[in-house]
């Protein structure tokens, strides 16, 4: 799954060129505002991602038969990761999303920058997204 949508591919390349880990964080922070946002008043237990040190919520739906997620978190790094994830999954067929692996994290050299709990939280989020995509594709 090395073929990511162009906007994500561009971001991956930007990250690859950066060697200072603080700069990578800064870029993630900037991406936070570009998430397809799930506003705080839509956060609830049902869309909460568990196993995260921070509050993180994700809503998934179909638009014209294509997968679409929105997300929100109280930590900008998490929200930045959500923004990247949106680029990776939104607009795809749900079946396709259900089979995605989040290899972009490694391609961006982000793995080492994340704390174990962030890393864990991200994997939980991605799994949740895939599970929802599976459900949505079955409902089709």
């Amino acid at each position: 799954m090395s073929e990511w949508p162009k906007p994500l591919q561009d971001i991956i390349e930007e990250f690859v060129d950066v060697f200072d880990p603080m700069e990578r964080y800064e870029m993630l922070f900037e991406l936070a505002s570009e998430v397809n946002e799930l506003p705080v008043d839509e956060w609830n237990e049902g869309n909460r991602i568990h196993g995260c040190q921070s509050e993180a919520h994700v809503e998934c739906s179909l638009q014209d038969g294509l997968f679409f997620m929105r997300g929100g978190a109280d930590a900008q790094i998490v929200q930045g990761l959500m923004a990247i994830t949106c680029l990776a999954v939104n607009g795809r067929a749900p079946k396709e999303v259900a089979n995605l692996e989040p290899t972009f994290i490694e391609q961006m050299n982000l793995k080492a920058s994340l704390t174990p709990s962030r890393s864990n939280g991200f994997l939980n989020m991605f799994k949740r997204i895939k599970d929802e995509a599976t459900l949505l594709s079955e409902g089709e």
Partner: protein
Amino acid sequence: MSLDIESIRRDFPILSRTVSGGKSLVYLDNAATTQKPQSVIDAMTRYYEQSNANVHRAVHTLAAEATEQYEAARDTLAEWFGTTRDNLIFTSGTTEAINLVAWGWARANLGAGDVVLITEMEHHADIVPWQLLAEEKQIEIRVVPVITESGTLDMDVFHASVDDVSLVCVVHTSNVLGTRNPIEEIITASKKSGAKVMIDCAQAAPHHRIDFKGMDADFVTISGHKMCGPTGIGCLLATSDCINQMQPFMSGGDMIEQVTMEKSTFQSGPAKFEAGTPKIAEAIGFAEAARWLSQHDMGELHAHCNALAKHTSESIRVLPGITVYGEPGSGDGSGVVSFLHDSIHAEDLARFMDAGGFAMRTGHHCAQPLLDAYGVTSTNRVSFYIYNTMGEANAFIAHLEHIIERFG
């Protein structure tokens, strides 16, 4: 200040290591656990390389040496904590010590309707055992709240609550706020009302010389790893009266007098509560930690940590977006500063500080009810110890300022 911090730092091998790509380690997570001086590490190595054997009922040379060193450790620690060997029970730490009070003393001596008074400032270790006991024995748990602005106990409520209480369990020094509670006042009032009183000194013992006899508490709990000692060891200090009232908790070898298949009889004193092969190397290391600390003036140590906390708290309080909890460094605190930034998540902030070499803790610090009182689920926490310098505090402040500028 007559502490020679540079020379003290040389006693701690870990302080010369680097982290995060060559940054000098600035270790500001001392409330979680302190670092260990070379002499403590060496004492354990020496034990394993030269005298290791199982203790007690010992005839052969190694066993005699190991027993002597283990029991000498008990003497050293008892003296350091202002008590005698008959009042010191080795445990694996404060958590086991509090559980021992709950299951060994309270379970045998309290019943339905009895009240245990705790506070909102307690560590989970001083909350959960009482909840489990309360469930089993229909005991009531009463809670003294915290005044959030000052980060202190509401002593009016305390005094209004203590009258009909059987056991008072209070943390001496908060691990989240650094607040030193008025334990003299608490102990006096508890005694007057006829209650037994347990003081959780996990955070106090690293900063004050505990004087068990002078304090007049019934129980005091201590963790070795928070006062330069090894992991896996701590102790419960208890009056002889209370020890005599305690029923066995953990049972097995060493704590018995005689075992038959029909019935067993037990040792008296601390031995009754020390089942199985003891934490021998750990006790020896723990005693060496007390010996290391005894070279320094504990009052100066305390003033030093407090000054670093006061300076840090005053300097970061004015940074944009920062809230400091309680009043660190005011009065008699223990060198802890808990804070949050309003937009940088605590965990990310900790990560950014780590990238600069600064080790600070993030989370609920095993004190969720206290954090609930502040309406937060975690804080960033720096905690100073004897080997930290004003230079480190200033570097921390500067790096935090830089992070806020960049990410705030």
